[in-house]
């Protein structure tokens, strides 16, 4: 029981007939209210539904960017996180410094940095390859996220008792192998929930690519909005973006919190 509940202890009354009827009336009123709003805004809703297939493609790009960014962040961040617990002093300090720098830079600034830093195209295998803008933005987000992954990995490794390192050493495993075969598999469990919430944060941050002109959900919505010149459309349209992200993100963040609670009880 939390100290807050001490201040507001209250016993819920049992569900009797009058309460049941009151609840029913409330739900009915809510239903009528929603119906009325939908009727008043029916043309806007129809328009937004009409746009949905195109907007869904935009949102798919958001998700793709989120996945690519998270892959990059995981690969680079895990490397950085393992270097943070390295025995080599120089490597460790460099990894710690880089992690802190990455964590303390605003995501938008890192995305700007990568967008401006990466070349427009590069030459490999005897031909020129263009780097699409969405990939650049995703890599920028991946770089920004890798600082967080690095901290997650370091925290996960630190959460494993030193006895496990010693046990691995007594099996004659070298340090790198004991990290890979003994420590990391055990640390995985405490790393998954924060990793999932980082995925949520990265996916939400893909909307920043809107500012770079990448045609993701918000950009494709704005392109359609400028074609309409209807100020009354703005509020429902941006509400639509809210709902789209919320429907995708909320279950993942709920599940990550559930895992965190569940696994913290037994560890």
């Amino acid at each position, binding site marked *: 029981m*939390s*100290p*807050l*509940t*001490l*201040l*507001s202890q*209250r016993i819920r009354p049992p569900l009797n007939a009058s309460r049941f009827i009151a609840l029913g009336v409330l739900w009915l009123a809510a239903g009528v209210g929603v119906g009325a709003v939908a009727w008043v805004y029916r043309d806007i809703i129809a328009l937004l539904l009409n746009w949905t297939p195109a907007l869904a493609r935009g949102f798919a790009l958001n998700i793709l960017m989120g996945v690519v960014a998270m892959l990059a962040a995981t690969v680079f961040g895990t490397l950085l996180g393992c270097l943070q617990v390295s025995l080599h002093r120089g490597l460790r300090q460099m990894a710690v410094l880089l992690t802190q*720098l990455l964590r*303390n*830079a*605003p*995501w*938008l*600034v890192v995305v*700007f*940095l990568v967008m*401006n*830093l990466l070349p427009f195209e590069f030459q490999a295998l005897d031909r020129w390859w263009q780097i699409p803008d969405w990939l650049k933005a995703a890599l920028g987000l991946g770089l920004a996220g890798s600082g967080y992954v690095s901290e997650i990995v370091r925290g996960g490794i630190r959460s494993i008792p030193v006895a496990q390192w010693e046990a691995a050493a007594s099996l004659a495993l070298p340090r790198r192998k004991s990290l890979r075969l003994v420590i990391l598999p055990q640390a995985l469990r405490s790393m998954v929930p924060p990793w999932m919430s980082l995925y*949520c944060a990265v996916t*939400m*941050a*893909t*909307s*920043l690519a*809107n*500012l770079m002109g990448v045609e993701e959900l*918000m950009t494709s919505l704005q392109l359609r909005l400028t074609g309409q010149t209807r*100020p009354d459309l*703005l*509020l429902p*349209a*941006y*509400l639509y*973006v*809210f709902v789209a*992200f*919320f429907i995708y*993100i*909320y279950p993942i*963040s709920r599940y990550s919190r559930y895992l965190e609670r569940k696994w913290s009880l037994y560890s």
Partner: protein
Amino acid sequence: MIERYVRPWLEGQGFHLSILWDPTDAQRFLLGLGFTLGLAIASVLLSLVIGVLGVALKSSPWRPVRQAVTAYVELFRNTPLLAQLYFFYFGLGSLLPMVEDADGHAVRMIGNFQWAVIVLGLHSGAFQIEALRGSIDAVPRSTIEAAQALGLHGRKLFRHLILPLALRNSLPALGNSLAQAVKSTSVAYAIAVPELLYACNRIWTDNFNVAEMMQVLLLMYFILLGGCALLMSRIEARFRLPGYHSR
């Protein structure tokens, strides 16, 4: 002096740091820094007010009130900050009436800076509620029981025991949210608030010194965040109770 010694040397190194010698750029840059600081401080203050209010409402005896707070927290935690900014600035802002400013120009009732403060405050307020609640929950149960055994209850228990300990517990989370607030100010770039990123963007498009300004920009954020960390560790040391460790 800068014009005579620093500029030729830096330019000799290929480092066109126009904010050091161009007064317009210097002014833009400093104004941007001021806007970033102002945004961060104002939004943190707003988020603290929201956090305290939210925690109070979350312990309300009425279920709909508690559910409304939960809905607010979940909505603002699980949608992108940029979408929130656009929703408020373009969506709600376009519905507000125009008012006349001092010069007689018609302007929006709430300007872009105010919207940025409101949205950043609402966004971090949602995180603040969770953090503050967590810090109240982290007050040890045995300490509360000890206070109850001494006859404290209700308001007195809250004011003399739970609140002072909970505030200390909340300091790390507060430092975190301060750092987060400074970083989030860069998103105000989207609605043309002339903060640091916006100012630097203007400067590098005018002077073609993207690489230099990028480094300056990152350095500024590191200094700001380092300052926040230093400030918070000072405050934590100042309020540390000997022998008391939160969970």
